[in-house]
């Protein structure tokens, strides 16, 4: 069974939101080369702030900015634990993820779930301007495009250059007069800021914030990044950014399709993990096949010369 057109549109809409998450994960995982588990916590921070602000009658766009700032703060804490207190990156992320659970509950006023059925959200605002079938997709696409452009422009600045080099080679960055610690702080704040924004969008999109919805978000982001890399390539910087975003959309479509072939919605975490394993394996095969192509090209060239 193939999913209905409405379900396809639904996964596109959600895909735009998860694409923002994927770009955040791209920054920490690929650019800084750092496995950052803060994501599972900071995405809920974004949801919580966004929901509380919307429920309080604040402009929902402001709520999104608040969500991004909240996520960035969580990332900054992870960065400080890692750079100043020399705690391993992965452990620092886990610690902040754990602590964020309590902080998020406090933000939400100690209720595990905040409904937004009666509040204004950016998606409801879009519904009034456009046919509701496509409104969410268009809104998501605009936000996503804006983020990709801004991110690309930033990564092409002098600061962006050294930021990208930090994940490649810390010694070289230090030898070029830049503090790697500052780059990591910047990167983790930026990365989790995007994750927080994705959380804020998600809460407004689904119409509620839930304290337990962060589990596995880092894996989903990573799956999207890898899926994008395998299918759309990594040749240029802009291509890598777009690939991560497209990977997230594709991932949503795959998940939705899994529901249509008879998986239960409770199986989704399992399906997520399986998609990651398949994407990672494809990545491995991709490397091998490119080596094979290079080898065969060399071989052919040799034969022609002979």
């Amino acid at each position, binding site marked *: 069974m193939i999913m209905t057109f409405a379900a396809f549109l639904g996964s596109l809409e959600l895909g735009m939101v998860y694409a923002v998450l994927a770009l955040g994960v791209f920054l920490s995982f690929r650019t800084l080369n750092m496995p950052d588990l803060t994501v599972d916590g900071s995405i809920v921070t974004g949801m919580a702030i966004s929901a509380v602000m919307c429920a309080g009658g604040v402009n929902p766009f402001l709520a999104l900015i608040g969500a991004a700032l909240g996520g960035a703060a969580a990332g900054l804490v992870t960065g400080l634990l890692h750079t100043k207190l020399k705690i391993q990156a992965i452990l620092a992320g886990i610690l902040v993820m754990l602590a964020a659970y309590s902080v998020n509950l406090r933000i939400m006023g100690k209720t595990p779930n905040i409904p937004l059925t009666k509040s204004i959200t950016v998606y409801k605002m879009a519904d009034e301007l456009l046919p509701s079938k496509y409104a969410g997709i268009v809104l998501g696409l605009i936000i996503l495009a804006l983020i990709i452009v801004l991110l690309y422009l930033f990564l092409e600045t002098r*600061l962006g250059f050294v930021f990208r080099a930090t994940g490649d080679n810390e010694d070289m960055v230090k*030898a*070029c007069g830049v503090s790697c610690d500052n780059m990591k702080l910047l990167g983790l704040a930026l990365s989790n800021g995007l994750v927080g924004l994705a959380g804020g969008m998600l809460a407004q999109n689904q119409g509620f914030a839930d304290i337990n919805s962060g589990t596995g978000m880092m894996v989903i982001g990573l799956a999207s990044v890898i899926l994008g890399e395998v299918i759309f390539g990594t040749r240029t910087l802009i291509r890598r950014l777009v690939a991560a975003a497209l990977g997230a959309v594709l991932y949503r479509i795959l998940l939705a399709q899994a529901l249509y072939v008879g998986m239960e919605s409770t199986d989704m975490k399992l399906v997520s993990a399986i998609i990651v394993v398949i994407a990672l394996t494809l990545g491995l095969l991709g490397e091998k096949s490119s080596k094979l192509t290079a080898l065969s090209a060399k071989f052919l060239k040799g034969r022609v010369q002979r």
Partner: protein
Amino acid sequence: MKNLLELKGVTKIFGEGTVNEKVALEDINLTLAEGDFVTVIGNNGAGKSTMLNCIAGVHNVDKGSIVLDGRDVTKLPEHKRARWMGRVFQDPLKGTAFDMTIEENLAIAYYKNKARGLSPGITAKDRKLFREKLSVLEMGLEDKMTQKVKLLSGGQRQALTLFMAAITEPKLLLLDEHTAALDPAAASKVLALTDKCAEDPKLCTLMITHNMKDALRHGNRTILMKDGKVVMDISGEKRRQMTVENLIEKFSIDTDRMLL
């Protein structure tokens, strides 16, 4: 000639107070004049790399002070000292960001002493300048400027790193066995480039090497280190008369004693 670099009583001990305690540098006093090109030789574990790393700020010294061009840099972190120093490492992978292009790497090095704000990472003017300067290397790198560094050979990478280290005309050039991982042809090319970089404009250079012929042929002064101390320091006439055989003699006494 003005003194450019002064090491005064520099001591570095690893694992102090443990069973593995090792005195890597013991009361080193060394002065480099402006324009000096000093080659450093010595057995493994003699303290050559440790000395370079202490100057660069990778390690903090336990005792003594390091003065660069009249400024005490002993307490400055590595990235702050980098402003006056260019460095090339032994490992060709260590000097460049492998997943970025040649021109991007050059731009990062080129803007070392300028603000790293939100202005464009590289401009058309920069590209033109890099292209001109790279063509002097005669390695064909000027035609590969948008290629990722990971596709370059070890020799090309070391040449690029050296070029990046010298592009901002630092006060001091630190070379830690930068030709040791290269094949002989690439090594001699990189050494020739080293001479060029150290000569024009005249940069004060400290070069560690295991090749004694190179140590005598390049630069104007040679020091020999052993057990964390400088045991020989020759220049001028004395150095001109020094042969590799003489050095080996001096070396082999040391190695024999080390074997016992």
